[in-house]
């Protein structure tokens, strides 16, 4: 329900500046994902928005109202923590109702809100249990439920899936996506280091690096036209291949990027590059070939379906020219 503006926001701990001036507009009802490697400042940025940490300089506005000095509970936010942060001695129901109860709200209203949220997340049968009696996935759903009960303007997620196993991560990711559909006017900000979560959930992604905003855009924009080598390498799995030296010079750039899915295997002698298959990974739906073409690292080639290319065979490779990424010496793309 809120549009959020960050104006040249910085954050320092003593002499160490962890957020180095970020300008960012988050639209009302948008699902914004902050992504980046560990230590890039994405969690700090989320904590600045939540009010758990104070901004050192700059301004933050929620719906054009300056919130720099508002405490978290007055900002109309709810937060889901990586570690769930449930009160261990309270039953699920009390965990969800605690804030409202202490705010002296009407009992029937509290009950309705808690039960509605529980129904939405299918945790009604867990309301009488203690957190320690729940599985990780259930705990995270309770944490999300507690956030829903707060009826926030802004929903903050701090790496909510990191403590879950792979299967649960996919399932919970889906539920968060559904939650965004049902609560379409609530702004959601989601922090992750996992680019798959970022790509699947986000309306827009903010890639952070060293406390600065590296690139802001839709998942497709980041995938198709990354505006630095860093973003190109961070978005996409498996990672984009980067070629330097003569491979790059041939295409007139300092660094040449080619995604594994954009390299074709062509008949012997017709491709730009050729080499020996040194390793192959069969994922069932895809094959990843690691081809030694004389670059710094083996080139990863992704081929759909079953592909019987034995290790050690010679292949000829041709990148799809419309999907090549050419970067200059400053790591910025050449257009």
């Amino acid at each position, binding site marked *: 329900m809120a549009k959020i503006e960050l104006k040249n926001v910085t954050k320092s701990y003593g002499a160490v500046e962890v957020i180095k001036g970020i300008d960012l507009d988050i639209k009302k009802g948008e699902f914004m994902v902050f992504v980046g490697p560990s230590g890039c400042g994405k969690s700090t940025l989320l904590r600045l928005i*939540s009010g*758990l940490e104070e901004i050192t300089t700059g301004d933050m506005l929620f719906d054009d109202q300056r919130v720099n000095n508002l*405490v*978290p*509970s*007055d900002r109309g*936010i*709810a*937060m889901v*923590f990586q*570690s769930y*942060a*449930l*009160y*261990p*001695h309270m039953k699920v129901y009390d965990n969800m109702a*605690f*804030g409202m109860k*202490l*705010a002296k709200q009407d009992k029937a209203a509290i009950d309705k809100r808690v039960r509605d949220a529980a129904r939405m997340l299918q945790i009604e049968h867990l309301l009488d249990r203690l957190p320690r009696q729940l599985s990780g996935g259930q705990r995270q759903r309770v944490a999300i439920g*507690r956030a829903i009960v*707060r009826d926030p303007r802004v929903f903050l997620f701090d790496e909510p899936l990191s403590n879950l196993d792979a299967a649960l991560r996919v399932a919970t990711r889906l539920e968060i996506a559904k939650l965004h559909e049902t609560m379409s006017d609530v702004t959601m900000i989601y922090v992750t280091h996992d680019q798959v979560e970022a790509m699947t959930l986000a309306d827009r992604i903010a890639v952070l690096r060293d406390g600065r905003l590296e690139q802001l855009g839709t998942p497709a924009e980041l995938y198709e036209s990354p505006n630095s080598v860093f973003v190109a390498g961070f978005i996409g799995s498996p990672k984009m291949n980067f070629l330097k030296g003569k491979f790059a010079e041939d295409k007139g750039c300092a660094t040449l990027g080619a995604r594994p899915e954009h390299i074709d295997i062509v008949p012997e002698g017709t491709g730009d590059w050729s080499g020996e298959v040194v390793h192959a990974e069969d994922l069932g739906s895809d094959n990843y070939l690691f081809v030694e073409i004389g670059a710094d690292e083996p080139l990863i080639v992704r081929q759909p379906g079953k592909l019987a290319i034995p290790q050690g065979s010679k292949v000829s490779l041709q990148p799809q020219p419309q999907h090549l990424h050419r970067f200059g010496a400053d790591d910025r793309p050449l257009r």
Partner: protein
Amino acid sequence: MTDQTLGRASGPSLKQRRQRAAFWFLAPMLIALFFVAAWPLLRTIWFSFTDATLSNLYDAEWIGFDNYLQTRELSSGRVVYRGTLVDPAWWNAVWNTVRFSFVSVFFETIFGLIVALVMNAEFKGRSLVRAAILIPWAIPTIVSAKMWSWMLNDQFGILNDILLNLGLISHRIAWTATPETAMTAVLIVDIWKTTPFMALLILAGLQMVPRDIYEAARIDGIHPVKVFFRVTLPLIKPAVMVAVIFRMLDALRIFDLVYVLTPNSAATKTMSVISRENMIDFDKFAYGAAQSTLLFAIIAVFVSLYIWLGRVDLGGERR
């Protein structure tokens, strides 16, 4: 090879072997405990049913419950009761001990909690403060009792000097000698001495509380005071309960501080002090043993009551 011979060849099962190993690991401790705890306790209980004196320990004769309660009908027809259960000096000591224990443990818990909360916060020089705060506890009781007895001294004590200069008292008070203030003096020293211990045990409990739930509470907009009572306190309750039991056990058998600070004052004489007095000073060894036995029983009752009331989970199974 049949199953039977296979079973015999492998000897005792894994479980049996583990139990046997556990027993051997425990054996030294069990033996030590028997000699330093069980045997003296049983001997004391036995002595309490005899007429033993210090000079005649080994030829003591069994006299039943006479040390506890003895009735004799005089020729006039009057019935006279004797024994520790009708000894006003004993009941005075019981009252002193219980009063001392409750008051001291109460204040130690409150102060310990406050100190622990402060030490749990982040501030510069925290580790130094944590070390410094243990000093009162690390000083031997005899030394701190002597130290305090000088500070509390009516003629030369610094405490009287300060209070006089501040105009809080009009004349010097003999803190340890006056019956009205003797118990207060003992309490002050004991609280000063053992608050650090309490604080340390509670601090250990506080550090188990995950930090992020405080952030969740901030987002929920819950007042810090309410967070303390509704979140922190319930979560550190087990640690506090254990700390209180430890201190209660300690306080109910207090001896050294009272013995050094206020010797021979009826206002502070505790169960331990009076039983030692009977055993050694008055050569009524069996009588003192009976009082020691009662002391043991009273402590056992208090602790079981406390565990039962507080449902303390000493085994840690609920965690």
